[in-house]
């Protein structure tokens, strides 16, 4: 059994840790690129959202490298992600790619089925081993997100432009070659040390922008044209509340474990959207409110064309924009998105934020006191 999985930003590091530790051979598909999307677009229905197209490209590119089994997570609720598993199965079968699909879904009451799937994946049933693997994978995903967060802080402040990107990219190249969570964690801590050594401008108070929206397009750098790099290199500190580790912990583990979920975003979204409507609409709205309350200069919402939950969120965002006087830019992405127009919007948005901050400072407004 040679297992592969779809790319979503740095998720592959956690997935690799998981599969390495279980002891099954895994094939990491080539990083998302134009060819991946081209292959996916060819096989996917035209109006389906972008992530499925990229995923299909991943599977087929991994198949060419010898993968025969796909590991994906599932989802419930009114978002198309819940159908990704079945859709992928059917589409791959139609295109005569002989691949098996294993979905690691929350058990949703059906514990037996869930355990069956784990058994299939792990090739046995050693509870101790499985728990240990899950624990290590979670730690890896947390560390990866910490590294990402660190680059968000350092990139706008670095004195020599490009030094953060260099360290970060070296890590991405090396991580494919190491084995198991232990070695991955070691690499991550080395990377963290290197990042901390980068010389920064400690006086600088950069603009702060929060990234919200649909999880795939906010996390995957290919899908969002490396927005965190772009903003960071323009001197903007970014933050993204929805992360891979957050997803694993909040949506997978806490569904099984009897622990309390982190629901701050839900409370913040309450006045605007009182219930879960699928996808990350509530997170988008709640996190926008939280960013506004925490003194961020702006918020960027990103989602793939035709994403229903985010369309709902987008139509509510102007109310938050008005109530909290925060600037929001919405970027919609699909395979037709032109990079030039996209960059123009980001550039103009940063100009706008700079000007607004100048105005605040000249007007002796509260903004002077924000950290």
């Amino acid at each position, binding site marked *: 059994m040679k297992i592969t999985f779809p790319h979503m930003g740095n998720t592959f590091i956690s997935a690799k840790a998981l599969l390495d530790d279980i002891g099954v051979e895994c094939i990491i598909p080539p990083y998302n690129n134009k060819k991946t999307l081209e292959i996916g677009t060819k096989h996917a229905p035209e109006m389906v959202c972008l992530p499925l197209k990229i995923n299909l490209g991943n599977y087929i590119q991994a198949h060419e490298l010898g993968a025969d089994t796909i590991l994906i997570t599932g989802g419930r609720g009114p978002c198309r992600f819940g159908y990704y598993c079945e859709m992928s199965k059917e589409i791959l079968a139609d295109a005569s790619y002989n691949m098996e699909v294993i979905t690691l879904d929350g058990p949703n009451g059906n514990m037996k089925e869930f355990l069956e799937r784990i058994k299939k994946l792990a090739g046995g049933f050693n509870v101790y081993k499985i728990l240990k693997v899950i624990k290590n994978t979670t730690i890896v995903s947390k560390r990866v997100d910490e590294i990402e967060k660190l680059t968000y802080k350092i990139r706008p402040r670095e004195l020599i432009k490009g030094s953060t990107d260099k360290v970060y990219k070296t890590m991405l190249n090396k991580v494919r070659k190491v084995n198991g969570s232990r070695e991955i964690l070691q690499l991550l801590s080395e990377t963290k040390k290197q990042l901390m050594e980068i010389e920064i401008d400690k006086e600088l108070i950069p603009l702060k922008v929060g990234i919200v929206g649909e999880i795939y397009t906010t996390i995957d750098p290919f899908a969002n044209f490396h927005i965190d790099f772009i903003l960071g290199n*323009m001197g903007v500190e970014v933050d993204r509340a929805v992360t891979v580790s957050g997803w694993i912990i909040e949506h997978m583990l806490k569904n099984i474990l009897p622990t309390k979920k982190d629901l701050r975003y839900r409370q913040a979204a309450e006045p605007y959207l009182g219930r879960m409507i699928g996808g990350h609409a509530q997170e988008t709205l709640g996190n926008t409110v939280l960013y506004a309350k925490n003194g961020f200069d702006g918020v960027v919402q990103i989602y793939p064309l035709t994403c229903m939950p985010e369309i709902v969120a987008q139509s509510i965002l102007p109310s938050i924009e008005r109530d909290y006087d925060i600037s929001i830019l919405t970027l919609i992405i699909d395979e037709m998105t032109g990079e030039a127009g996209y960059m123009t919007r980001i*550039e103009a948005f940063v100009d706008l934020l700079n000007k607004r901050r100048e105005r605040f400072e000249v007007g002796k407004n509260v903004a002077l006191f924000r950290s």
Partner: protein
Amino acid sequence: MKLGKMSLYLGVDVGSVSTNLVVINGESEVVDKLYLRTSGQPINALRTGMKMLSSKFGQNTVIRGVGTTGSGRQLASVIIGADIVKNEITTHAVAAQMLVPDVKTILEIGGQDSKIIILKNGVVYDFAMNTVCAAGTGSFLDRQAARLEIAIEDFGAYALKSNSPVRIAGRCAVFAESDMIHKQQTGHSTEDIINGLCEALVRNYINNLAKGKDLEDTIVFQGGVAANVGIVAAFERALGKKIIIPKYYDVMGAYGAALIAKEKIEKSSQGSNFYGFGAAENEYKARSIECNDCSNLCEVIEITSNNEVLARWGDRCGKWSSVVKKDKEIVG
């Protein structure tokens, strides 16, 4: 117009449909403006424009600063040597504020895109650009005018002659065209159909871009399409407000770029990067290569002149673009 040894500033807007050049003086007044068709060849358009300016201003003027904008801003900056390279939203806002100081809403419809810019307390507060469809832009109007064999300059005037408007589906360029043909075959007059089209475009614009935004007075309408009186009338009807068309409505991007360049040069003690009017006369070649060194597969653009590489861009890692380091602001 008297031309002494003046200190002037140049703004260049290389757009998809038109390439505009504006020359302003130290008092921010427009000394000269050119509106040229890009015709898919930005370098040629730029060359023609520079030649025209060169013969007019010759050796007697000093260009103290140059700004470029528009979708071809990077290309233009490499060829003529720009001091600032700015996106078109910022330049349009700066230009509108200069001409109409209390502007709150800017409607802009150009060849390939349309945008709305909202200002509050004198700064850009919010903006939106059309996302998926070109139905509401100049090139679509151009095409429809050509199909009806009406000069684009007269197109708007036809709309004003309409007495009973026809409802055209304006959501998508393709559907709008087939709907227009359908209405034409059922016997509606050309005037009514054109008026219906103007209203459809305005409806589309307001539904798409202005959604959830308060369009407050003073409203300015600029971009090439502002010349179309039919669209202007449709906007005034739809919004119930008076719309101002600024003096240089068709070259606002270039004007704004010149203003920003002027501001930058006046603030700093540096001289201009401008290569001179002759710069565009050189032979320029642009070619693109797909870099296969990693899985990003970046499309790298390379600009060469006399076998000398002037600039490269389009790569994510900086491997190609860093080879030619130029001491200037390329992005932002």
